[in-house]
């Protein structure tokens, strides 16, 4: 199992670095004369487990409560072999207030799309907005304090499935806290995840200047 942990981490790092450096156009650059409406695709791809990364540099992956029985069994097995010293403590705190990462991201992305230059509709849209969550979890975002981190890709497709726009982004929560405080206040986990989701949706949809792809450092 430790081998699987390391393999998964290496894949995550490889994917993260492969995303670094390219200039990305903002969502607001989409031609609004041609494409006026957008529908949000309800199916969101997301990993079934979150990433835990603390300042010791050890990474673990826990299960999502929405991962199903197989995911739960796998997640528990990986968790049992975890190398990160704080993983079990965080997992215990997070399980008291589980989050639905897809629901969080959908809520905030739709809210951002409503503000965007395009009109959000449910049917007969000119375009479809797809969201794929690469990874999510907690990492050191303020010194040793842990904050929520989410990395995702937004894609805009035309009616014929043509790729119109795509952007990779990651964001962290404003709130960051120690593991000890998180154990005493487990509600901080959903609060931090909500803040990170809101920040990420804003970066994906409402940032209006070109940006460079970068790796989600707190999860590395």
């Amino acid at each position, binding site marked *: 199992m430790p081998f699987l942990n390391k393999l998964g981490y290496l894949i995550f790092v490889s994917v993260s670095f492969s995303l670094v450096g390219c200039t990305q156009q903002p969502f*607001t650059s989409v031609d*609004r004369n041609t494409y006026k409406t957008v529908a949000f695709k309800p199916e969101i791809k997301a990993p079934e487990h979150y990433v835990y990364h603390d300042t010791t540099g050890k990474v673990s992956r826990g299960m999502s409560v929405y991962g199903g029985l197989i995911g739960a069994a796998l997640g528990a097995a990986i968790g049992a072999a975890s190398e990160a010293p704080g993983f079990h403590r965080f997992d215990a705190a997070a399980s008291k207030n589980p989050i639905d990462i897809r629901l969080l991201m959908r809520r905030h992305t739709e809210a951002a799309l409503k*503000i*965007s*230059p395009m009109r959000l509709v449910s049917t007969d849209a000119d375009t479809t907005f797809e969201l794929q969550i690469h990874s999510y979890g907690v990492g*050191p*975002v*303020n*010194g040793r304090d842990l904050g929520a981190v989410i990395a995702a890709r937004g894609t805009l497709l035309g009616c014929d499935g043509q790729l119109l726009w795509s952007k990779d982004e990651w964001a962290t929560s*404003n709130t*960051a806290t120690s593991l000890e405080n998180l154990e005493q206040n487990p509600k901080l986990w959903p609060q931090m995840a909500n803040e990170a989701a809101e920040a990420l949706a*804003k970066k994906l*949809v*409402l*940032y*209006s*200047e*070109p*940006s460079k792809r*970068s790796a989600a*450092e707190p999860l*590395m």
Partner: protein
Amino acid sequence: MGAIGCAAFKPRPEGVSWQVNYSVQPIYPKSFEIVAGGPLSLTKEELTDAWKKKAALVANGRRFKATPLVVHNTLSMQGMGYPLQTRTVTGTITLTEKIDRTEDGNLPCEQASTGSRIDL
């Protein structure tokens, strides 16, 4: 080039340490996320003051609202292959007065000004 020009030639506020770096990201429709960052030797107060000066500069005399400022100390691996410890102050301002837009609907590059009104 327009975007590069905006990023490269944004004016610095007066009286701010050369160690302070800024990042200004326009957010549709009329907000700006401003990050003031520097080495850990800069205090939270110094960076907060630098942030406020930049916010006034970005607002260019227009009234605005600001979110509570977030201070984070971060360890970045992007500095020449060795870890860099930095402190950042981040906040978003939203202009509350009508602003002019360019033909493509984007916000114009900020201009230096004095006498900005700040509602922090």
